[in-house]
Structures are given as C-alpha cells and as structure tokens.
C-alpha cells in the first residue's frame, strides 16, 4: 500500500508547489514597507520648485501615495479613476512624480486633470528608492500614523479599489 501512497503523496506535494509557484506573478514583489513606517520625505513641488512638499502634506490623515510618471502607460490608464476618487473626496491622494521631466508632467496634469493634493518632483528617483519603487504606477495606502498598510502595483481601478482598499480603510477607521 505504501508503495503507492508515497509516490502519490510526493506527486500531490509537487502539484501543490507548482500551483502556488506558477500562479504567483514574479513582477509583483511583496513590499517590506508593509506594516512599517512610510518614508518621511520632502521634495520640490512639481508646480513650483521653490515650494517643498512631502509626507508632511498628508500627516495625521489616511492617504494614498501614488507613484506616477508620464512615460508610464499604466499611469494614464488609472488616471481617470484617480480623478474619480479625488472628486469623491474621501481620501487625499499625494502624487510622487518619479523620474520624469517637469514640462511633460505639468502638461499631463493640465490636459488630463489633477487628482493630487500635491505633487512632489522626484527627478533623480531617490525618494522613489526609499519607497521601494521599481515600476510605476505603484499606489500605497498610508494610515494616519504614517504606517504603510497596503501597496498596489499596476493600474488602479474601481474593482481593485473596492476589493483591496476599502475593507482596509473601513477596518482602520473602526479602530481609530
């Protein structure tokens, strides 16, 4: 009996490993920032280089930090939804313009609309590295104590928002 059971068990184990391994997306790397304090930063504003914006802009409230750039096609895809979220006004969205150039980024916000409470201009990508960014768009949910509670890689939309973000926001609001 064990003659068949052992290979069968080994086979099922292998199947389980493959099911888990092959359905994982290697381009989505879990962020070590989760449940840890978000980076504290200050950068020149996209609109005005003389003005500094950063994590202070969304201190003491739950916020989204959205890493975007004009070279990023996915950012254009999610932009409409970000505008909807901003219009609903339930959560401030802070923009980190990553590795971009100022005229293009300003042009983008002018023609497509600006969902951000403020946009930081991270031209050399240094703050992006502090956030562990490797592919825009990336969106972080930061709670009012400055702790990262969720990270979404890839364009955001209503469905993902309702599924992944809303329950987390509700749970935190219940606690606070």
């Amino acid at each position, binding site marked *: 009996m064990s003659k068949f059971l052992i290979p069968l068990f080994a086979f099922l184990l292998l199947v389980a490993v493959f099911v888990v391994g092959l359905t994982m997306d*290697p*381009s989505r*790397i*879990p*962020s*070590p*920032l989760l449940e840890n304090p978000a980076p504290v930063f200050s950068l020149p504003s996209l609109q005005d280089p003389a003005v500094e914006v950063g994590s202070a802009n969304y201190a003491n409230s739950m916020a989204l930090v959205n890493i975007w750039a004009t070279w990023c096609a996915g950012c254009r895809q999610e932009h409409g939804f970000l505008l909807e979220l901003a219009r609903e006004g339930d959560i401030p969205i802070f923009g980190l313009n990553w*590795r971009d150039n100022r005229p293009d980024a300003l042009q983008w916000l002018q023609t497509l609309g600006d969902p951000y409470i403020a946009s930081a201009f991270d031209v*050399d*990508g*240094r703050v*992006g*590295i*502090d*956030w*562990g960014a*490797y*592919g825009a768009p990336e969106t972080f949910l930061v709670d009012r104590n400055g702790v990262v509670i969720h990270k979404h890689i890839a364009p955001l939309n209503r469905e993902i928002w309702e599924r992944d973000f809303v329950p987390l926001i509700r749970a935190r609001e219940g606690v606070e």
Partner: protein
Amino acid sequence: MTKLLVIVGVLFLVSGQVFAIDVGQSFEDPELQARYEKIIAEVRCLKCQNQTIKDSNAFLASDLRREIRRLLEEGKTDDEIYDFLVARYGDFALYRPRTSGRTLILWIMPMMFVVFGAFALWRVVQRRVALPIDDESMDGS
C-alpha cells in the same frame, strides 16, 4: 572575403567594451572600487529581474548604483548597504538572500532533496541486495 570576416570578427571581439555598462572607475581608492563592483554584482535589478544592477542599464539600476556609491562614500559597510536595499526592496533584491525565517526554506530545500534522494537510493540498493539471485532474472528473459 576572409579579410572582411576577420575584420568583422575582431570588431565583435572588441565591441564588448561598447556595450558594457558603468565601465568607468567610480572610486579613486581601489579597495572601494572593488567593494562597489562586488556589491553591484550581487543586487538584482527589480525592473529587469534576471539581471544584476551591474549588467542593466535600466534607470532603476543606475539609480541604485548611484545610491550604493553614495553609501560607500559615506563609509557604510557592505552589510549596511545590503540592509538598506533589503529594507526597501525585500530579500528578492539580493541574488544571495540572507538566511532568515522567510528565506530559510530556500536554503534548506536543496539539502532536503539530497538527503531524501540519498535515503531513497539506499532503500533501493538494500532491496536489490536482498533479492535472491535466480537464474531466470540473470538470463534477462
């Protein structure tokens, strides 16, 4: 014709220099330069996952090389630099992830396979040795 081939061949041989990334000397101090080259060969470019940041010209790789140069200039140790990267990008950023609770399975699995294989082999050999040698099976019929 042969001459042309030789020329093309030689051009291919020397073209590696052209495609190499970050060939310049980054540090005056040869010791720092050696450490820098060692570290960038150990760090994964997360944008282009099967390359190290030494081999990649993605902007993220060049940003990470710049940060590593900055940390070296600040006198950080190799471990502090790896900590900096792991804190931001996770264990996956290092080609040789450290042994921790999360990565232990990566290190233990191959050893388990070897032990399990050796055990299986031993069992089979034992059984074969115990088999009676009869003429029929010796004939191979």
